[in-house]
């Protein structure tokens, strides 16, 4: 029996397998992206970058709970200029690297794109969906079809790179946003960002554990909701989807692909199964695909809709 072929074409970008490191995990430095590549990821996303540097929220910023993780890092990042420096010669990383870019208004995004224009990123991701950072994402009103269209159109003019738009699972009619993004020229949808926000209170301290009090929910808790989002988006748009949320096994990855994803993000799973989770997931996918007579990822995409 031949080994199944895990390669995918994500709007023109060739990936050796569908696993993608989502933004916010390990994406602070080129050295870590290399490590992620060595551990089998198909592509990697850098930590979201704003024009100016941001320190983010105080600790605790990340807190695991029994059904996943809560985080309110607060988009800490060294700003666009520093980021361009850190990721110069990004070709040294053996897999495609996606630049995640944030801003409050359309112009902010464009300014960051301009600063990064010399860097060889493979795509630009726009997370219009953070549920817990004032001035960004949902808290900047970016979860509407109009705002999505504005920002995507502006970035579309500023770059030739593929644009991925990252959406929030909090918006019930997520397909509307996906459609707006597609109409405005996005090349792929990343679904989804974290859910909520949620809160965990330490009852002895009588205080929320996160310093920002609330944080976005990722991991297992998010998975069925992310799967539904991908399923809904798949019916609404033609561009590919990077299904992200709670994936930690090959079965989860296949489930997300059957819902309609072309690639899959693996973030919180790193905590649960280690940094080699990318390789583990690929191995599990290969075994399942062999046993179930699938030869390529292509054959799996969206088949739960049949």
């Amino acid at each position, binding site marked *: 029996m031949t080994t199944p072929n895990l390669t995918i074409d994500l709007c023109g970008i060739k990936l050796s397998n569908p696993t993608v490191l989502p933004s*916010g*995990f*390990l*994406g*602070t*430095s080129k*050295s*870590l992206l*290399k*490590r992620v590549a060595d551990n089998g990821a198909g592509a990697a996303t850098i*930590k979201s970058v704003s024009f100016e*540097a*941001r*320190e*983010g929220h*105080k*600790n*605790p*910023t*990340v*807190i*695991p*709970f029994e059904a996943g993780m809560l985080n309110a*890092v607060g988009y*800490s*990042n*060294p*700003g666009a200029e*520093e980021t361009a420096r*850190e990721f110069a010669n990004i070709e040294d990383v053996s897999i495609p690297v996606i630049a995640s870019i944030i801003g409050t208004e359309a112009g902010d995004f464009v300014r960051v794109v301009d600063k990064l224009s010399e860097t060889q990123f493979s795509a630009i991701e726009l997370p219009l969906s953070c549920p817990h950072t004032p001035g960004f994402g949902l808290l900047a009103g970016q979860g509407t079809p109009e705002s999505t269209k504005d920002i995507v159109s502006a970035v579309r003019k500023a770059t030739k790179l593929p644009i991925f738009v990252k959406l929030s699972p909090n918006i019930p009619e997520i397909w509307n946003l996906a459609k707006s993004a597609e109409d405005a020229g996005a090349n792929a949808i990343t679904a989804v960002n974290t859910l909520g926000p949620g809160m*965990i209170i*330490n009852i*002895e*301290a*009588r*205080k929320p*554990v996160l*310093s920002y009090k609330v944080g976005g929910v990722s991991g297992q808790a998010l998975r069925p909701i992310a799967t539904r989002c991908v399923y809904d988006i798949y019916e609404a748009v033609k561009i590919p989807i990077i299904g992200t949320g709670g994936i930690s096994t090959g079965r989860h990855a296949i489930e997300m692909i059957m819902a309609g994803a072309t690639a899959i993000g693996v*973030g*919180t799973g*790193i*905590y*649960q199964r280690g*940094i080699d989770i990318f390789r583990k997931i690929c191995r599990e996918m290969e075994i399942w695909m062999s046993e179930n007579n699938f030869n390529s990822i292509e054959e799996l995409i969206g088949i739960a809709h049949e």
Partner: protein
Amino acid sequence: MNEGFEQPVMMKIDKIIDESDDTKSFMFRHNLDYNPGQFIMVWLPGIDEKPFAISSFGEDFFGFTVLARGNFTKLLHNMKQGEQIGIRGPFGHGFSIPDSIKDGTGSACIIGGGCGMASLTVLIEKLQDYNTTILIGATTKTKLLFKNRYKDITLFTDDGSEGRNGYPTDILEDLHKKHKYNIIYTCGPEIMMYKVYEFCRKYNIQCEASLERYMKCGIGICGQCVCDGQMVCKDGPVFDSQALGKMSDFGSCSLLKSGQRVSLKEYGEWIGC
């Protein structure tokens, strides 16, 4: 998945010990699953959370030692016995003890500098009955930590106010000729650790150094504590010669809270040590 506590657990301060004019140890009656070199995250609810080494450890107690530097550590110093502090962990990868040390055929050296000593005390307790040399350095007499806890230690101060004048690394060459070290453990200012590492490389001695980087998650996912592809919180804080050899940031760079990579000097000015 980590052993121990994923979420902070509030623990009552059982005792507070003054170690020096600016250093205190906080003791807790609690059992932890701990290996020397690992660290815990200490949470002051509503304030902040920072990593600390465990400096005392027994079956039903543990303690950590804090140098008052910035806001957080000063608030910690203001806490009283009976008050509660949040602890999660232990996290990370600690020191390893080679067979040659365990079976008494080899010898080890432990070099602590300043508050870095706090990461070494539990290791010292484990190794003091073996062939182990203990060197402690500090800028001045009052900063020499744990000097009375152990017998047979050699003290150094930069200003000569106590012990030998100079750095612990000054006499390494002589000591090694005599003891033929199999391993040298170190924690302290990174510049000192870097010297130890270079010495070890020259003489082909195994080296383990405990690094310090600004931390956020503490569990290996955010990438804040990166040192050349290694996460100090998860792959470290203790690294061996092989790992250190691949880290060009070791002894040179660190990330600020924003993720900006700066020289250790600039980092030190921001965070001090």
